[in-house]
């Protein structure tokens, strides 16, 4: 590529992913509100389940993914893996905020409280969020790019390993108030299960699309800066 040409802001893959996301979200919403049956105990309030649970699953998977990408960065020393790890964690934080807010709204409607401190699932998720809330301050406190990437990767790996351990610990704890979705105790009717799966796919697609846009924007900005320096404009 010539030093005076600049990369396109998007590609065919990103466009296809965006179209799939834009198609999946209305389909999921239609299934949630017009196809899935209403649950007897919680009634219409249970519809939050199709948003809150996929958000939580995608958030936690994103954190783990960030850790795996950080491992790749430490193994290969390629800057791209660090960037991917950063974007995965950054997006998971945003989705995590959505999970906490939708969860609180559901708790308020279902239990009459915005937050229940004795509920292990809620508190453990908050602990994970607070842990990852320190990722960006840690990262941007280091000026040297090499060191920044290395330290951030170590953090992402340790915190990423903590996520499944934390999930297992909560699962194994005896005090349950939180509704179980996945596992032996979950017996969703087929219509509910199908709607849940479509919602999960839609949220995962949204996550992937936003990650790709964020990556493209970051790469473009980095390239812009490096080109500016190369051409002596900075």
């Amino acid at each position: 590529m010539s030093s005076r040409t600049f990369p396109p802001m998007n590609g065919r893959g990103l466009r296809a992913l965006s179209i799939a996301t834009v198609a999946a979200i209305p389909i999921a919403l239609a299934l949630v509100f017009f196809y899935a049956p209403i649950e007897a105990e919680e009634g219409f309030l249970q519809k939050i389940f199709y948003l809150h649970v996929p958000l939580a699953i995608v958030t936690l998977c994103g954190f783990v993914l960030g850790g795996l990408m950080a491992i790749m960065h430490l193994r290969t020393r390629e800057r791209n893996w660090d960037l991917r790890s950063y974007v995965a964690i950054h997006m998971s934080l945003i989705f995590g905020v959505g999970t906490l807010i939708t969860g609180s709204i559901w708790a308020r409607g279902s239990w009459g409280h915005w937050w229940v401190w004795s509920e292990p699932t809620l508190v453990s998720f908050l602990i994970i969020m607070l842990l990852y809330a320190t990722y960006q301050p840690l990262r941007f406190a280091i000026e040297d790019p090499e060191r920044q990437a290395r330290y951030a990767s170590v953090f992402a790996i340790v915190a990423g390993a903590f996520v499944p351990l934390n999930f297992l610990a909560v699962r194994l704890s005896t005090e349950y108030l939180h509704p179980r979705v996945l596992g032996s105790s979950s017996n969703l009717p087929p219509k509910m299960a199908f709607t849940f799966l479509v919602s999960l796919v839609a949220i995962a697609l949204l996550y992937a699309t936003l990650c790709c846009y964020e990556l493209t924007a970051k790469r473009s900005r980095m390239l812009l800066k490096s080109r500016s320096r190369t051409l002596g404009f900075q």
Partner: protein
Amino acid sequence: MTPLATAIPGSSNNGYVAAAYIVFFAIVLIYVAIMAIRLTRVERGLRELNERAETPRDGATQGETRQDGLGEDDAHSQARERETV
């Protein structure tokens, strides 16, 4: 098996459901808006860079042909085309 309602329950909780979905889409919308602003800034930066790169080389690059057979002007117009797609 999760019990299903035989009749449509009262609508006292509809507000919570609406609030949850609205909050989520508001978060996504705010994020997309921030992203759009940042991308606009990058595009403006690219445009300025292109303009500044063109200025000092105007005289020197007239008729100059690159290895891929494209003149500098062609390359710039292609780059600009890709930038706005």
